[in-house]
């Protein structure tokens, strides 16, 4: 019998009792506060069409939308005329973009003479900046699209590059073996990374920062994870959060069970619970696509909880992906954090996650907490 089952089941049972006694501190489902942020279209789109102009746009974006309001008549540094920004009509599908309310702000400033000599500009990126010969850590553009660029910038010793490619190579969602196979490849990729990082590190940042120190733990975690088959609770993740999580988990499940019993709303599922190994496999799969490399330092401080509905073949239902809650950052940074989480879920799920079909009832709805604490720049 699978230890995971035992534990999970045990947690269940133990906590059902608990629930009956102390049922009050139920984790109330988080409201959708953030939701409208995620979905930009609807109302705003209408608003735009209705002719209401810019300001709204700003509310849902982090960035200061460029000078929509006539820029303060500051003597602009010798440069050219500050372009006036005007929100064009919104989402993709149809609307003719041409209609945008023609900007009253459009003629804000008389073009002052300019020294941006346009002609000289033909050549592309290299001009922009020359790589430092000694420490270049940028990927050169490569012909073939890959998920992961060259080992490059990534300081993560254990990042799994090439996730998607791998997945492609591991076609069948066959249960455990595949899982193991998949995980076996991951560290390999990680090794590449380590080498790169090690080679780069000295020149890039000679004295150790906080980051590197955190790293060494991670491979271990992964390794433990690889032992998959007989999941130990500890393997799931390091640290206290997990405990809390486990408790919440159990609680949640217990409550749900209670609810189920109460009104039998859902088709009862009887069978083994999701094993820790299965859970880990999912976690690892999503991790591989969770790219925090383009997140702001604020977003890297923001933990988001994202819910997603799954199809029976293990694919995420894209429109169902929602941010349930966030913590540690602003609403704006939560948006970027959510965006990257959503991309991760979708990208690594395009071929379906490797989840046990017979337990579909257990993973039809998934709630993922994306906690970038370890990935932080500081």
């Amino acid at each position: 019998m699978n230890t995971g089952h035992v534990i999970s089941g045990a947690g269940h049972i133990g906590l059902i009792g608990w629930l009956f006694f102390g049922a009050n501190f139920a984790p109330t489902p988080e409201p959708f506060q953030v939701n409208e942020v995620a979905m930009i279209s609807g109302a705003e789109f209408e608003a735009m069409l209705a002719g209401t102009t810019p300001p709204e746009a700003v509310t849902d974006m982090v960035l200061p939308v460029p000078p929509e309001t006539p820029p303060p008549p500051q003597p602009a540094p010798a440069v050219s005329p500050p372009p006036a920004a005007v929100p064009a009509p919104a989402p993709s599908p149809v609307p003719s973009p041409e209609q945008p309310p023609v900007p009253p702000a459009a003629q804000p400033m008389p073009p002052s003479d300019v020294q941006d000599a346009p002609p000289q500009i033909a050549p592309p990126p290299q001009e922009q900046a020359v790589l430092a010969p000694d420490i270049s850590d940028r990927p050169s553009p490569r012909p073939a699209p890959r998920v992961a660029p060259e080992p490059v910038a990534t300081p993560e010793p254990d990042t799994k590059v090439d996730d998607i490619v791998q997945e492609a190579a591991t076609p069948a969602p066959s249960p455990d073996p595949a899982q193991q196979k998949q995980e076996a490849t991951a560290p390999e990729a990680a090794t590449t990374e380590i080498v790169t990082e090690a080679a780069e590190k000295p020149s890039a940042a000679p004295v150790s920062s906080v980051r590197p120190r955190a790293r060494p733990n991670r491979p271990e975690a992964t390794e433990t994870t690889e032992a998959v088959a007989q999941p130990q609770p500890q393997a799931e993740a390091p640290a206290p959060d997990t405990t809390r999580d486990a408790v919440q988990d159990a609680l949640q499940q217990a409550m749900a069970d209670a609810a189920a019993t109460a009104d039998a709303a859902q088709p009862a599922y009887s069978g083994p619970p999701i094993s820790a190994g299965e859970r880990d496999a999912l976690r690892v799969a999503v991790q591989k696509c969770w790219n925090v490399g383009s997140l702001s330092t604020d977003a890297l401080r923001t933990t988001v909880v994202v819910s997603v509905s799954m199809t029976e073949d293990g694919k995420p239902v894209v429109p169902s992906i929602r941010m349930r809650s966030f913590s540690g950052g602003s609403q704006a940074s939560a948006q970027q954090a959510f965006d990257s989480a959503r991309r991760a879920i979708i990208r690594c799920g395009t071929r379906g996650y490797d989840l046990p079909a017979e337990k579909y009832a257990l993973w039809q709805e998934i709630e993922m907490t994306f906690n970038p604490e370890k990935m932080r720049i500081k």
Partner: protein
Amino acid sequence: MQRLLSLLCCLALLALGAVPGQAQQQSGPLRIEITEGVIEPLPFALPSFVAETAGAQDLADQISRVVAADLVGTGLFREIPQTAFISSLTSFASPVQFADWRAINAQALIAGAVALGSGGRLTVKFRLYDVFAGQEMGDGLQFDGTQEGWRRMAHKVADVVYSRITGEGPYFDSRVVFVAETGTKGERKKRLAIMDYDGFGASYLTDSATIVLAPRFSPTGDRVLYTSYETGFPRIYLLDVANVGRRELPIPAGEMAFSPRFSPDARTVVFSLTQGGNTDIWRMDLNGANPQRLTNAPSIETAPSFSPDGSQIVFESDRSGTQQLYIMPATGGEARRISFGQGRYGSPVWSPRGDLIAFTKQSKGRFHIGVMRLDGSEERLLTASFLDESPSWAPNGRVIMFTRETQGAGGMASLYSVDISGRNLKRVRTETGASDPAWSPLLP
């Protein structure tokens, strides 16, 4: 804790004699926590912007290239070569075939169009898509300007894209004032120069007759404080960028005045003044009123920099015996030391976000650019070389530009930039040698 929990559970299980795998019900979502991810540049696709008027194609291409260069230059993005594209965008209005972009693993798609109107009016509009989510990120935007300003418009587009995806503030539409250097190390000619942040559009602000040092932008980016030897002695000058007019600041008597910086409200200048061989920090209204000595010690106090709220000043001092960093109230008073690591710390600069101090560190014969928190914690060295110095923050506080000088008789100074993560170190393109960069605020 967890172990304990599972143990208890097991006991409970045994006690109940329950058979696992039966009577287990889970509804409610499956929950997992993701704590590890990858750090990679985000791949984006940027088909050349569509020319909506005849003759605008060249401009559209150029603008597309600048946008892509801005994004790639951050190190946070990777451009998918156009040769890999499966579908093309022939019209700004046509719907996006997300599947085609997903297939080449483009995670962001930037679609734009350029129109050239009468009188050289240029219109640039664009949309940003999250390819995998199959939806637009934010609303489409449109910029109007003159044809000559196309580069700035491209930077604006890139700024919006960058900000929407990363959540970081924009910074591409900014300029850098610096010291252009020519001549050999021993007879170096120095001139003030200004350029776009990416090195384009450089022009000179002074001639090379005298040494000029360490220009600093005003908070509005329209004026520059700098040090010049034009009288034979270092004095501080205020230069108007637009008309290149300059005047010497009426600073109290002393052998030399240098290392000036604006306060965030642009009304005050803080600087170093040397009297009787001793250098202290002073502040003064820009018009010369209210000179006030902020430090008064026989040691060297210099390189002052205001906090963004104007309430404090970080500076360097060798009062402890070696150069270290200190923070004091902006009106003077007791200073607290914040740097305690091995080595010497100088030229501190307060981040525009207020949370970090960038500095130059000398240790074991090497120079570093680093950052630390306001209490000196979490010190991180971002670079190392024979000689790195004079950091300056990008307006969004995410990137630092600095001077790197090579070793030996043929030594040359160049500008480099680095992300505060320590990644993406690269040289900034300048025609001549260059030093002492000062990044402007985001242009209005």
